[in-house]
């Protein structure tokens, strides 16, 4: 248990270090790679919290697809951040701190990690999903059972949305590529 706490602490320190480095950089190319690193770190944290499904999504989307999309964008635009006026930076800082303070305040209302009296533990549906699911659907992982069977149509719709979005991005990037080629010719 102590090892897990120490690991949690270490990974969070890594996260903060990467976030500060991200904020300080002006050249966007290392920023794209560091964002992927940030994703990998948070995916490790999710794994530590016993949420492998979330970790898998975070790694695939955050570290894999987003990095490649950022790089493809840099191929079309320039990879350097424009300097921002100091007054606008102050506004951004204030908004960021206000949002952060609100989130911290909201997290005070959350139950403690692993608490016994949360709705997750006391609600009658808990038996339905965690116990009866094993006989009904026979998938060892409850999250997978919910995603693929209990709300299978919802997941299908979600997949269609993500597929359409990916297709749209590919069409947009592909069109500009053709444009570039006809300019060369």
């Amino acid at each position, binding site marked *: 248990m102590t*090892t*897990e706490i120490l*690991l949690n602490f*270490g990974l969070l320190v*890594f996260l903060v*270090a*990467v976030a500060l*480095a991200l904020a300080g950089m002006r050249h966007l*190319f*290392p920023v794209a*790679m*560091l964002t*992927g*690193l940030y994703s*990998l*770190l948070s*995916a*490790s944290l999710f*794994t*530590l919290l*016993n949420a*492998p499904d979330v*970790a*898998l999504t975070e*790694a*695939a989307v955050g*570290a*894999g697809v987003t*990095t*490649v999309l950022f*790089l*493809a964008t*840099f*191929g*079309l635009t320039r990879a350097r951040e424009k300097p921002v006026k100091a007054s606008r930076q102050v506004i951004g800082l204030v908004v960021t701190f206000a949002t952060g303070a609100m989130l911290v305040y909201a997290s005070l209302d959350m139950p403690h990690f692993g608490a016994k009296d949360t709705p997750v533990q006391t609600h009658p549906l808990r038996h339905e999903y965690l116990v009866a699911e094993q006989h009904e659907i026979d998938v060892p992982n409850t999250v997978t059972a919910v995603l693929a069977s209990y709300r299978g149509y919802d997941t299908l719709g979600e997949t269609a949305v993500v597929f359409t979005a990916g297709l749209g991005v590919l069409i947009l990037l592909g069109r500009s*590529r053709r444009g*570039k*080629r006809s300019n*060369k010719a």
Partner: protein
Amino acid sequence: MFIAGLIGVAMTMLLVLVRVLAGPTVYDRILAINLFGTKTVLLIALLGFFAGRPEFLDLALTYALINFIGTIAVLKFMQYGDLGWDSDARDDADV
């Protein structure tokens, strides 16, 4: 034994992170980030066995694949300035 492994991997992660943040050239950063991904794979694999849930090994395998694809994309960007798509101009672009 798993604890010793976890501590060792966490230490190497720290060293690699220092190289990512300090690395003078972009290539240092790319190499360091690739290494960091490999360390994450190791960390998650070790974590699975440490927590008694060796199924996490699947997760580690997926990370290994993603890490590989990400590094290839970054290096292609460095080489060609884009992802090497216009292959009719350069035949070796998609190698």
